[in-house]
């Protein structure tokens, strides 16, 4: 798997992501600074990692979405490339129009840093192949703007086409308000593009891929990717 992690000024989870990708694939991903205007030849996965790109001073992800490299990412996606956005990366994907909706301030108006549980809403995608539908996994979340919003029409489409990847749930898999700490619409934690190749989610599976750090709940996302991309 030739993974490329894009580093914007203010990105801060690129190393976490690199560790997870290397753990799953045995290969070190390439870190690419945002000023580049092309992806390395042979790239088969682009990752937009977490952080505070450009300080997130205007809206989270808004300025990064305008970075030179994002045109290359758009072109890559348009040709069917795989793009994963986690946390700030998810925010950037929505700001760049690669995924629908937007991420508003957490309903609590506080930064939320804690483990959450997510239910896998769709299996068999490049990101979820190693989970069963309905499986529940744990991951840390750490964000101030993770409250997923989209209009009713988009919501109906996401639900109708099975493009909701993950929802916040209880450890037992119930979709409750209490499990929905940031106030996201219908507990949405992560979504997919119609071709299932672009995925954005708020929590950090990359921070839970090692028993030493408290578990390997997040690992299936990366092993799924490795397998899907090997056969893609």
């Amino acid at each position, binding site marked *: 798997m030739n993974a490329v992690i894009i580093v914007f*000024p*203010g990105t*801060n989870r690129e190393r976490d992501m690199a560790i*997870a990708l290397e753990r799953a694939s045995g290969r070190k991903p390439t870190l690419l600074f945002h000023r580049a205007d092309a992806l390395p030849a042979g790239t088969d996965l682009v990752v937009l990692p977490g952080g505070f790109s450009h300080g997130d001073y205007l809206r989270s992800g808004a300025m990064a979405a305008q970075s030179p490299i994002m045109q290359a990412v758009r072109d890559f996606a348009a040709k069917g490339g795989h793009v994963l956005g986690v946390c700030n990366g998810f925010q950037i994907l929505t700001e760049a129009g690669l995924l629908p909706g937007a991420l508003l301030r957490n309903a609590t108006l506080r*930064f939320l*840093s804690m483990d959450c549980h997510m239910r896998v809403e769709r299996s068999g995608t490049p990101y979820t192949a190693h989970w069963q539908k309905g499986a529940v996994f744990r991951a*840390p979340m750490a964000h101030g703007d993770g409250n997923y919003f989209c209009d009713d029409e988009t919501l109906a489409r996401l639900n109708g086409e099975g493009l909701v990847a993950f929802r916040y749930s209880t450890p037992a898999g119930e979709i409750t308000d209490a499990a929905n700490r940031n106030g996201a619409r219908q507990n949405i934690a992560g979504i997919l593009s119609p071709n299932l190749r672009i995925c954005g989610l708020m929590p950090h599976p990359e*921070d839970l891929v090692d028993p*030493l750090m*408290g578990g390997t709940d997040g690992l299936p996302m990366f092993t799924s990717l490795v397998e899907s991309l090997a056969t893609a």
Partner: protein
Amino acid sequence: MSTAPTSLDAARAKQLSAEFGLKADEYDRVLSILGRTPSLTELGIFSVMWSEHCSYKSSRVWLRTLPTKAPWVIHGPGENAGVIDIGDGLAAIFKMESHNHPSFIEPYQGAATGVGGILRDVFTMGARPIANLNALRFGAPEAPRMKRVIDGVVRGIGGYGNSVGVPTVGGEVNFHPAYNGNPLVNAMTVGIAPKDRIFLSAAAGIGNPVVYVGSKTGRDGIHGATMASAEFSADSEEKRPTVQIGDPFTEKLLIEACLELMATDMIVAIQDMGAAGLTSSSVEMAGKGGVGIELVMDNVPQREQGMTAYEMMLSESQERMLMILKPGREAEAQAIFHKWELDFAVIGHLTDTGHIVIRHKDVVEADIPLAPLESEAPLYRRPTAETPKRAVLDAAAIADPVGPLAALETLVGSLDLCSRRWIWDQYDSTVGGQTVKRPGGADAAVVKLDGLKRALAITTDCTPRYCQADPEAGGAQAVAEAWRNLTAVGATPLAITDNMNFGNPEKPEIMGQFAAAVRGMAAACTALDFPVVSGNVSLYNETEGRAILPTPAIGGVGVLEDAAHAVGLALTPGLDLVLVGATQGWLGQSLWLREIAGREEGAPPPVDLAVERRNGDFVRARILEGQVAACHDLADGGLLVAVAEMAMADGTGATLAAPPAGQAPHGWWFGEDQGRYLLAVTDGAALVAAAQAAGVPAAIIGRSGGGDLVLADGSSISVASLRMAHEATLPALMEGRAA
């Protein structure tokens, strides 16, 4: 030689010097050093360099008595941060610093810029910061403005640390009315660097360029250092225009740019611009290197129009660094900073004059000989008065009004013992992907080193109520508790940083507290081989004459050769609970006495340092042998609180044996005797036998299992209800909601 700067009018200079906080005799010394009346810029430089904050004039004679050496210490106090060898060719670089006054004036920005400042102290030495901690003391929540202070401080620490991407992995919080008008915000950063690539601040190389990087200079925080050296009064609100705004995004870029530059060989010396900004950084760098320095203010990147030399030299704008480069490397270095979109400017050069010379618009604004600026800086051995000893309380003579379980439920929900989850849930504790033990998971935070097995354990500790009652015992206890917390996760304690927060040193009783606390700390550091490698002093923590509790906050760092050895505090079922260490039932200054009996009295528990070391070494060895499933040190609240904390961590209960015959039960359950640990092990008998062989007191006091804490008389309380009480307090207080 340059022409002399324009002196102020003599009478005006004298009046200003007082406004800037110089005492009359200190000002006379300025006159004799210069041989003339100073210019405004010169007066500004003297006053900030000779402020308590920069000169340590009241504390230095005492700080010198702290042990600072060990074979693993690479750089002790005197550099921007302390540096120790942690093995694998790496060094840990760390320090703690206060931002007390700014955090009271503007809690969010005060705390945020405190975090930014301590990060710079660490990465300026070449380290990538890997962990932040914060030691906080708040007043009574119902005190005026206090909730806003708590809210703002926590948001500010999170806001800055989360954005720069350094995990905030631990800390401590106390509440006491003594902090009503003067909360404490102490921030600690730990970083990692190759041990043969440490960057220091002594300037060298006549003619070498002096380079300014980072943010532009504005009129922020002018005279912040002098403000941090003065008592609060009702009108200090008017000093508000000096508030600084933190920009964590720029800091993040500055970290990356500096580390990129440090990977080259271009830097001769580097220092962050902290308190007193350009003044202290340039004076200290040149002073340490024994060279002169000449700065041209016209070249300083400026955010505002019409800034004067005085303003630029005293500005405390954040996110700036000063460095000396090797000659001819400016363009290469500049390219790195421009890649990261940061200002880069050559603002001067080193000279052989031994003077600091400040030029602006072709005028010399200051010309001061550096040697006397340092050597003749005021140094006081202020009068001290000993804190009177308090009576030792006998537990048996104190009535227990409620019994153990009711007391426990109250205690776990009390302000000083309730869950800090509401706070740490706002801090990103996992960024970096190396956090082995997060807040609440163990007695110390454990952070692994990327790509290695090795991990650091980190903690902050201080029990101010002990320090108030007996500053010497309290100083020793703070160091011992830090050592104990590191030990309890299985780490080998290596060194500490400290943050000495006290009242007005001109009062003998306060200076007495300071001196006694240092004595206690020094004794503990020596006995535990746990030297002080960096620190910070914050004095004048008083509002309208009322001092805070003496608070020598200790930040401890230890090492684990294998992160997999680290143990947490969560109980699992089917384990023996073994209490290591002797219990006399010490209730003086205990939380039980304060919260249940309503008394803040007595002598605090003494620390027997030899016993401390023996017990700790015994516990650590068992952990490293893999015999210990969970471990927790006994501190605030004593034995029953420790059992409850271990139970609440994962919801597993325990059945506990009766207190030993002849002991007052409340002394047994809630006494705060020192040097104790509670271990959960599969074979308690074997552990007790090993302890006996080592001369360490140990006894099986219970067994884990079920969902309740059950006492020998059959009374019980569910872990779930304890958790409810434990978790409810801060959310209810801060947001009026249930946990």
